């Protein structure tokens, strides 16, 4: 499990624009972090994903996108794992 997640994180960080990523389990505990991201944010990204799922409880969880002029953050949930990818736009 950890090995697979590490491989996924290595692949993600190698993609253009990606500066960091963090993964959380169903309790909001950090499963892995790489690049310019903090393991402290695992709880908050899980909370955001959980709150967003309440928007339409009958649909599958949405992909959450936060953007400003320079950066963006994509939060997505698959099964019990929530992942956040931080990207730099410049």
């Amino acid at each position, binding site marked *: 499990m950890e090995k697979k997640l590490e491989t996924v994180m290595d692949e993600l960080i190698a993609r253009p624009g990606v500066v960091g990523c963090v993964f959380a389990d169903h309790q909001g505990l950090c499963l892995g972090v790489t690049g310019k*991201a*903090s393991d402290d*944010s695992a709880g908050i990204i899980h909370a*955001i994903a959980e709150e967003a799922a309440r928007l339409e409880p009958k649909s599958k969880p949405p992909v*959450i*996108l936060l953007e*400003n002029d320079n*950066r963006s953050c994509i939060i997505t949930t698959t099964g019990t794992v929530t992942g*956040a990818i*931080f990207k730099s736009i410049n």
Partner: protein
Amino acid sequence: MLDILDDMDRPGQTGYLLLNDEGAVLSSSGDLENDERTAATIMGLINLTSQVDSKAFPPEEGFKKLSFVYDDHCYIICLSNRKIHVVKKKLPTDIPSNIV
């Protein structure tokens, strides 16, 4: 002014909400008409997103736009002039469902 915003034609729009900075519904239309529950959830999310990763995102920068993308529709949220604009719109069906 609010009426002008309501009447604006945004392609694919199915609903619209305008909230003040305390989360009260100022104006609404379509799917989101008088949708206090969605308004409360969105306010909760806006409060949460202000604390996202301080290492990757300096807290002084903040976010300008927040989107929730489902398979066939999305919600787009923008903050402007101390008001929160929420648009629910249909997505074209030919884009991939998994955008990540």
